[in-house]
């Protein structure tokens, strides 16, 4: 057996680096295991762990410094504090930024070894790094690498055991010595000196208010080191730099952005939502799976409670499985693949910059573009992603706008099918109304909700060709994580609906809202069934409309109402999971009220 050494004897080797420095390639090379890569500050935090020789290798999310500014930092901080050795991967093109983190790790008293990665790219850009001088100045081993090309990887592996304690920033050691270093580690003491509230609470010790002073000294030291280590004849005209520039100029950036959006729309809306889903949901699930499961469980009467729970219209083994595997799985993969490409190429942060001005009007900043784009895929998935927003206020606003105004891809296809025959006038009216409601409700929320939203302050990574392998791995890890989290939610939703239907409550609710449907929305009575179906699955609701005889204005009223109307039962549960009870209830009832208000006013005007 290979495990002659117990886990206790294994040392923890922690990989630390700024976002997008190629850390994942090191992790893969060391452990042969998978790692999630991301260059957009703020995506869902993943930690990967693997084995390399006598080491447990832990990967941390990309960070700019060790502190508590966001989830990534909080997670990385704890992994670093508990680690024995740190392999710090830095970007040779961004030494000024990256060595700041290196010096902080050294100041934490950690045993560090540094890999100056992307050395080939730096050479191409005319940047020369004197690794020997850098090693002398930092007091730790430094190796030049190009992980993708395999340069320097053997050297790093040989030298990992040589990782050592480096030369700290002037004055830091004296400050650290004020603490009882038998009680807490130097790393923890440094966090207290740098005003880390989380650690202060955990240790029951006060913060020292020295962050500013230490950061300034560290920055000066880093800049001084780099003066003697770095020489460049940088001219700044690589293709990546040019594309990055053009993306940020509105005159070229907005057309490029629209082209990207059109490409995404085609890929998701046409290719995935129609071609792929027709196959997975229609051919595979409805064609083979459903008859199969129904024949196996045929002995259970379909109209019994157990029968409807398992294989009924909204059954756990019928609708839930078909929905998740046939529809959600391909859509989630499609969306995460696009997002991964946008992230890894460096486009996503620039899209955030371009949309910042518009989103700031509704109390969000450019980063909120991520959940908003994902909303066109699945509201449940997008609601989960609002976690990356900077404040609770922004998360509430984004969740509300998502649930209210963004049609998910399942619904989108059906809506387009119903809207297109009505002509251009109606397509424009539908789109304009939704944008208007998005704007008005967003602006109002921004005014009403107390507090301040966070402001955009982001690093713009170099435009780079995404690595196919990284994109695919990341896509599957994210899709898997989402489906694991969402499946119980979809199942719970199905159970809820089955119970409502079995007890006859569904019919009662339908009857209760039918006067509203007939008199206020001026729609036929059956439309209330459609609205209730919309709660179960948004596309069911929309699809129900195609069986009804409606005039064009009636169709517009119905489509607007059903889009604004509460999101599906799974996303409602997700909203309740992510937000407080009061917030979730307000979001739910709010979208209910707005849907009927807008639909009704529209009906009174045009029907």
């Amino acid at each position, binding site marked *: 057996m290979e495990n002659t050494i117990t886990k206790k004897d294994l040392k923890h080797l922690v990989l630390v680096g700024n976002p997008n420095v190629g850390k994942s390639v090191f992790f893969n090379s060391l452990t042969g295991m998978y790692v999630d890569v991301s260059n957009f500050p703020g995506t869902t935090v993943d930690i990967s762990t693997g084995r390399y020789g006598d080491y447990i290798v832990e990967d941390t999310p990309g960070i700019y410094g060790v502190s508590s500014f966001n989830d990534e930092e909080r997670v990385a901080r704890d992994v670093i504090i508990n680690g024995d050795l740190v392999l710090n991967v830095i970007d040779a093109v*961004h030494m000024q930024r990256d060595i700041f983190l290196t010096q902080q790790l050294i100041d934490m008293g950690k045993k560090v070894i540094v890999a100056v990665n992307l050395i080939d790219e730096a050479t191409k850009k005319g940047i020369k790094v004197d690794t020997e001088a850098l090693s002398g100045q930092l007091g730790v081993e430094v190796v030049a690498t190009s992980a993708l090309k395999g340069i320097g990887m053997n050297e790093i592996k040989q030298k990992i055991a040589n990782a050592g304690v480096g030369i700290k920033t002037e004055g830091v050691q004296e400050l650290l010595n004020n603490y009882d270093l038998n009680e807490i580690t130097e790393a923890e003491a440094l966090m207290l000196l740098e005003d880390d509230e989380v650690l202060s609470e955990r240790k029951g010790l006060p913060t020292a208010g020295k962050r*500013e002073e230490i950061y300034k000294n560290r920055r000066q030291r880093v800049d001084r080191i780099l003066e003697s280590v770095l020489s460049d004849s940088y001219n700044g005209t690589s293709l990546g730099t040019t594309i990055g520039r053009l993306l940020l100029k509105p005159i070229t950036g907005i057309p490029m952005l629209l082209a990207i959006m059109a490409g995404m729309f085609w890929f998701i809306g046409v290719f995935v939502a129609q071609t792929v889903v027709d196959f997975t949901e229609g051919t595979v699930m409805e064609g083979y799976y459903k008859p199969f499961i129904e024949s196996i469980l045929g002995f259970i009467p379909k109209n019994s409670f157990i029968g409807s729970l398992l294989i009924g219209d909204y059954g756990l083994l019928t609708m839930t499985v078909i929905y998740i595997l046939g529809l959600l799985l391909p859509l989630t993969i499609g969306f995460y693949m696009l997002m991964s490409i946008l992230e890894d190429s460096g486009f996503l942060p620039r899209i955030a910059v371009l949309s910042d001005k518009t989103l700031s009007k509704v109390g969000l900043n450019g980063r909120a573009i991520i959940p908003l784009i994902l909303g066109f895929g699945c509201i449940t998935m997008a609601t989960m992603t609002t976690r990356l927003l900077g404040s609770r206020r922004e998360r509430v606003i984004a969740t509300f706008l998502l649930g209210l105004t963004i049609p998910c891809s399942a619904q989108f296809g059906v809506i387009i099918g119903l809207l297109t025959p009505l002509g251009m006038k109606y397509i424009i009216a539908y789109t304009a109304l939704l944008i208007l409601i998005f704007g008005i409700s967003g602006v109002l929320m921004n005014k009403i909700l107390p507090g301040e939203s966070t402001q955009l302050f982001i690093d713009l990574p170099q435009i780079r060709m995404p690595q196919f392998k990284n994109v695919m791995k990341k896509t599957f890890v994210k899709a898997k994580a989402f489906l694991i989290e969402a499946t119980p939610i979809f199942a719970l939703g199905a159970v809820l609906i089955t119970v409502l239907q079995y007890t006859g409550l569904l019919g009662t609710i339908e009857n209760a809202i039918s006067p509203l449907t007939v008199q206020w929305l001026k729609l036929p009575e059956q439309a209330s069934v459609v609205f209730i179906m919309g709660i179960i699955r948004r596309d069911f609701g929309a699809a129900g409309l195609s069986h009804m005889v409606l005039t064009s204005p009636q169709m517009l009223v119905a489509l607007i109402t059903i889009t604004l109307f509460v999101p599906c039962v799974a996303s409602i549960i997700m909203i309740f999971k992510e937000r407080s009870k009061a917030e979730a209830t307000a979001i739910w009832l709010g979208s209910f009220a707005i849907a009927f208000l807008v639909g009704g006013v529209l009906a009174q005007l045009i029907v």
Partner: protein
Amino acid sequence: MTLDKVSRGDIIEIVSIEDKDIRAQAIRLCIYEGSKLKCSEKLPAGPIILQNRLQEVAISRKLAEHIIIEKVS
């Protein structure tokens, strides 16, 4: 003057950054009191992009109103 008044192509020196947390995050990205940077792009009513060698940082307009700078050239 404040950073929101900068024009594209200006070289500026940072004088002070009002927000404590932003100040700490900025210093990591090479933006700190005394650092000289180039405004490489300014979006209409939108974020300002500051550049230091190959390092670029986007700062929202509202945040820029609270960063005091001096124009160098």
